[in-house]
């Protein structure tokens, strides 16, 4: 298949359409405005709906409504906008609505800046909205990977009836890379497969088939039952949906953990360190919820491994999960930047060399 030169934003938007998304609700915000822009031109071509909402809050609630009909629905925003969406995301999780939410992370807190960041890891994987809920959360590290994940994101969302969150960043959204775009999926709402969806009920129909999309359970008993059901689903997702990459970890003395775009910088640093004779490897969680705790633990607890370095563009958010996985089994150090500057391969190499020399 021919390669196309695509900007991350365009590629993610096109992949969503090819995966069957026919509703986009959003509001512009840098660095992801190209996503709604692309959707505004492309959705009408495929008989879909692009709607620029009056706010991010309105957009996520439109997602709630449209997802309730069983359609494939997507919204996108960047950090401050995703903060605004949190109430709606919690409602979607509570009402068990499959949908896809894109967060093209930028610097924070507050308005922060418009450059790439990874500081919404906590918001994405530890909640953000209220209640005991999780989102299937993926952190792509290339434009192609963002496309590939999008192609199964809706299926996963529907399988578990939970929203999927993309933790991308401004670099993925803005960078242009040659990509292979998959064929269009032919998706139609099938009431048999989605008996919960509101696909049309009229008086006289079986009352049991009446879809109700709701996240309120007034009495303690039924809320408890509902939450237990959710937790059972999350347990299943934790078991089945961990996704990660190991790069040159087999004989490594040092393991670097990193997600998203930063992992690509790390990969280059790993290659350059290997050329210098330093045995180093990368462990890259692709699903950050569920986090691949056990695989990371196994990788790090090998005898060859002396220490772990976690690299992120934040204060060390995934670091907490890395430490939970390793449970003190090996020393863990952190290297990161806070102002949206990306770590360079040189900085990562220096840090590893320092660790090697025992500084």
């Amino acid at each position: 298949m021919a390669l196309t030169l695509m900007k991350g934003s365009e590629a993610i938007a096109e992949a969503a359409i090819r995966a069957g998304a026919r509703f986009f609700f959003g509001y512009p915000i840098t660095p992801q405005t190209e996503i709604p822009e692309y959707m505004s031109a492309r959705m009408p071509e495929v008989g879909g709906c692009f709607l620029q909402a009056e706010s991010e809050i309105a957009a996520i609630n439109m997602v709630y409504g449209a997802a309730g009909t069983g359609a494939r629905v997507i919204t996108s925003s960047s950090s401050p906008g995703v903060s605004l969406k949190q109430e709606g995301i919690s409602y979607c999780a509570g009402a068990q609505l499959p949908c896809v939410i894109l967060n093209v992370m930028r610097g924070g807190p507050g308005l922060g800046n418009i450059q790439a960041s990874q500081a919404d890891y906590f918001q994405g994987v530890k909640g953000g909205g209220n209640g005991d809920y999780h989102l299937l959360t993926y952190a792509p590290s290339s434009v192609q990977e963002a496309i590939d994940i999008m192609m199964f994101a809706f299926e996963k969302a529907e399988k578990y009836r939970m929203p999927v969150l993309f933790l991308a960043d401004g670099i993925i959204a803005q960078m242009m890379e040659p990509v292979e775009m998959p064929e269009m999926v032919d998706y139609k709402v099938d009431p048999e497969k989605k008996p919960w969806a509101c696909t049309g009920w009229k008086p006289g129909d079986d009352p049991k088939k009446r879809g109700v999309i709701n996240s309120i359970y007034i009495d303690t008993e039924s809320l408890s039952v509902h939450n237990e059901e959710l937790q059972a689903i999350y347990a299943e997702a934790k078991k089945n949906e961990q996704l990660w990459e190991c790069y040159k970890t087999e004989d490594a003395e040092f393991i670097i953990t990193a997600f998203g775009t930063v992992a690509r910088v790390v990969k280059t640093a790993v290659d350059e360190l290997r050329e210098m004779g330093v045995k180093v490897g990368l462990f890259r969680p692709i699903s950050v919820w569920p986090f691949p705790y056990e695989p990371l633990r196994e990788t790090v607890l090998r005898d060859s491994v002396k220490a772990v370095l976690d690299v992120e563009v934040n204060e060390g958010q995934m670091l907490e999960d890395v430490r939970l996985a390793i449970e003190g089994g090996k020393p863990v150090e952190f290297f990161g930047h806070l102002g949206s500057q990306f770590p360079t391969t040189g900085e990562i190499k220096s840090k590893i060399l320092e660790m090697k020399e025992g500084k």
Partner: protein
Amino acid sequence: MKKMVVLIGNYGSGKTELALNFAFKAAERGERTELIDLDMVNTFFRLTERGRLARLREIRVVSPNYACSGIESLSVPAEVQSAFAMDWDTVIFDVGGDAVGSTALGRYHQDFMELPEGSLEVLNVVNIRRPLAGTVEKILRLQEEMQIHGRLKITGMINNTNLAQMTTDAELRDGYEMIREASEKTGVPVAYTSGKRELLERFLAEGHDPRFIGTPLPIDTYMQRDWDSWVKGLGGPSEQVLFTSAGG
């Protein structure tokens, strides 16, 4: 006579790279050169980011107000008028992508119309590997929209087909075929074919019809991104080994 080159085209077609190449070559010939960053639609990857390289060559750079300051609301500076009011040998306009970006040109319609016959080139930069320029129909539609929004008639096309780091011989060749068809349909000539020197030389050696090649323009890359130094695997389907807890 003052020569003006206006570069318009699809997002990511390579307008800024070409603007820098045109300007640097003009400066090398000793021409008094001005570069106008008229991209009012995209915050990132603008000509102004390479302003220092231009100024080192004694090229004057005009940028939108607040460009490259991390602020997203840009405005057109009055200084753009210097393109018309002052005495230059060459002025190059680097305009924002698509029809929306071309709108910024409309403001200078009167000034462009008053230029002497033959001094203005309006060039549509085409990269057929970009999705919105991937077919003849799309190229023609985009060209038409940009002419309407920019209030300028396109005088030539540039075949700048590439796949960034993954560009092969097929890119210019496929671009040639498609742009030739677009040119035949519209009567708009192919003014230039541009690419990395070695790719361009191989393309020229293939013996295509020179009427649809125009002037060959070997280009240097100035718009490298930070990530060009650390992006491995280039793009496209990757060979990385992934693991999943479901075992497949």
